[in-house]
């Protein structure tokens, strides 16, 4: 092999150095990216059905920013168990919808890289790592963005959290919007259909169990709430 001349040697080592430096930088970036995405999230309380701990952390942070303690309805987003509710909802969803919901959480959690919160470098932290005022500012920016897709991400995420907030019996009772107890008549269809997933043999009714249909009496606004929403159900 011909020995390389000095200039070529230097160019090669310069290229090699650049190569190594680039690889090291990419490696560091990858490690930093992995750490940002995967590391440092607290273990979940309870046993989530579908969401990962990082997604639960994002949701908890969003829920607390959307529904902070105090105000006209006392329970906060955490009190109302929004993250656990969304976990149940994601578990009940089909794979494509699960992916879409997961994408929402990821966009909010790491969108601070593209749309940082106020506060200089600290505004680049992931959403769940921001302080309360920074989270509020970030959500406000998504909500009022001139870009439709950003608004859509925000409204979708807020919709999921609001569903969870209104699933809390305490919130519904506070607003007097809890569902009422209703005596459900037994009709012909009830003699034919079992509960979903059960065998036809499990149908509990016979023709003797049929009851008169609803008489159209308006529900009593001061009547009892549905089981599970009454105060003694807490």
């Amino acid at each position, binding site marked *: 092999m011909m020995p390389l001349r000095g200039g070529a040697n230097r160019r090669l080592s310069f290229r090699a150095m650049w190569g190594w430096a680039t690889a090291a930088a990419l490696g560091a970036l990858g490690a930093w990216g992995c750490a940002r995405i995967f590391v440092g999230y607290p273990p979940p309380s309870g046993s989530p059905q579908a969401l990962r701990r990082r997604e639960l952390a994002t949701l908890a942070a969003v829920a607390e*920013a*959307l*529904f*902070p303690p*105090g*105000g*006209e*309805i006392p329970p906060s987003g955490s009190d109302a168990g929004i993250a656990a*509710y969304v976990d*149940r*909802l994601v578990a*009940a*969803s*089909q794979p*494509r*919808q699960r992916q*879409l919901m997961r994408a929402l959480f990821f966009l909010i959690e790491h969108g601070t890289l593209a749309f940082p919160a106020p506060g200089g470098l600290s505004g680049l932290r992931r959403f769940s790592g921001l302080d309360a005022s920074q989270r*509020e500012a970030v*959500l*406000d920016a998504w*909500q009022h963005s001139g870009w*439709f897709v950003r*608004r*859509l991400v925000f*409204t979708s995420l*807020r*919709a*999921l959290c*609001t*569903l*969870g*907030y*209104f*699933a809390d019996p305490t919130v519904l009772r506070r*607003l*007097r*919007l809890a*569902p009422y107890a*209703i005596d*459900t*008549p037994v*009709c*012909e*269809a*009830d003699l*034919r*259909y*079992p*509960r*979903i*997933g*059960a*065998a*036809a043999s499990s149908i509990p009714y016979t023709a003797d169990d049929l009851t008169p*249909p*609803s008489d*159209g009496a*308006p*529900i009593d*606004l001061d009547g009892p709430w549905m089981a599970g929403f009454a105060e003694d159900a807490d």
Partner: protein
Amino acid sequence: MSEGDLRVFAGYDRDFTEEADAVVVGSGPGGAIVAGELTRAGYRVVLVEEGPPFTPGDYEVDGGLSMARTLREGGLRTTVGTVMPTMQAVALGGGSLVNSAICNRAPEFVLDRWCEDFDLSDTHLSDLDPHYDAVAETIGISPTPEAVQGRRNLLFRDGCDALGFSSEPIARNVRGCRGSGECFTGCRSRAKQSMDITTVPAALRGGATVLTSARVEAVETSGDRAIGVMGRIVAPFTGRPSHRFRVRARAVVLAAGCMATPVLLQKSGGIANRSGQVGRNLQFHPGVGVMGIFPDRVEPQFGATQGYQSREFLEAGFKLETLWAPPALLAVRLPGSGLDLKRRLADVPYSAVWDAIASCDRSLGRVEARRSGFDPKITWRLNPDDTPILAEAVYRLAEIFFAAGARSVLCGVHGFPDEIHTLEEAEILRRRTLRPSDLVLGGNHAFCTTRMHGDPTRGVVDELGRCHDLENLWIADSGVFPRCPSVNPMWTIMALARRTALALAERL
């Protein structure tokens, strides 16, 4: 006639084949009527439904979980192009299980235009009236009684009266409504006469076989005839497929809905599409909702889900109506975050929500089968020329709210104040040109993807619902509408389906 047979997911243990005079795919308002009429005429009918039957014990009063269980794609189905949620049910009884039971005859001027523009001769109101009447008797259609209107609905009437706009109690397929406002999550009072508790049991009494949790995946054909359908048993909620089934029949009726029927035709090798119209011409009634806040409690949770409407602006392109839904579903539309959002949520008991559905027949889309799975790709764009109709509808709703005494109105339009306190503030809706993305839309009435047309080169079915290309393949869902009907479509779907069933019964 001997009693029929209903099969549920837990009852399937092997692949199987059924024989019938007619197989009907889909148990929503269209399919259930066809199955009922054919059974009554003495034919052996197999009714196939992908969803399970829901009992009151299976209902979820929570809006989100209810949607995840009763609606396709967990209630998260949207159009692409102009992004808009659109909901289709997957349950025995189809959409009738989770709709608000609104029944309107299509307006005379609409049906006259259908006849004129689509080469139809027998689809005037006078032609359909006998079918409307028969359906009304079957499912108990009558105006919502005053006793269960609730203040939320009556305020709408008061606002319309103050402005001189016509309004009326909405006719619904309900017997013994108690005003629980739970139409969208399943009526625990068993008052709503949905198909699962009316026409499907009637078909069973007449000897029909009803296969639930059975997804039809293809129509089988031989030459220019359909010879049956084939598919898989699917687990409720997950859709996981298991056993295979086949139904051989002398006639096939597709009533799977405006989204699923064209997908089924496309997945069956592109049948019934010599016109090239399968999946095309998709139209919606895009809807907008507006919330008004009143000085004192409205108690909006009480009252018929949708009890009052105004047809005042029908010819201008929109219909106005009252609305209630699980509080969570209404609250997702509220603006703001943090304590500001909580303040608005606390206003919900003082609020009423009214909405408009618009006839945007310049806004077209298409439904296409995806390479895998049976969920459609739905492309639709709101035509900029239709946007002013929706803006005007929002303005009119604000006008009615203020006339009824609302202290503020939340219009839900981007770039517009979150909350307005005078009608003058709403004037901007008339002055400014809105973009489609400025509006928060919903579109649950979908039409025209297998439209009827007198000319076989321009439509998929004829006036009676029979496919131009396959003489024993019929369609009986809202896909056959040649154009949107301007009012809630269920009753018209059922009237057309009854006509289809009677025509088919004559030919079987």
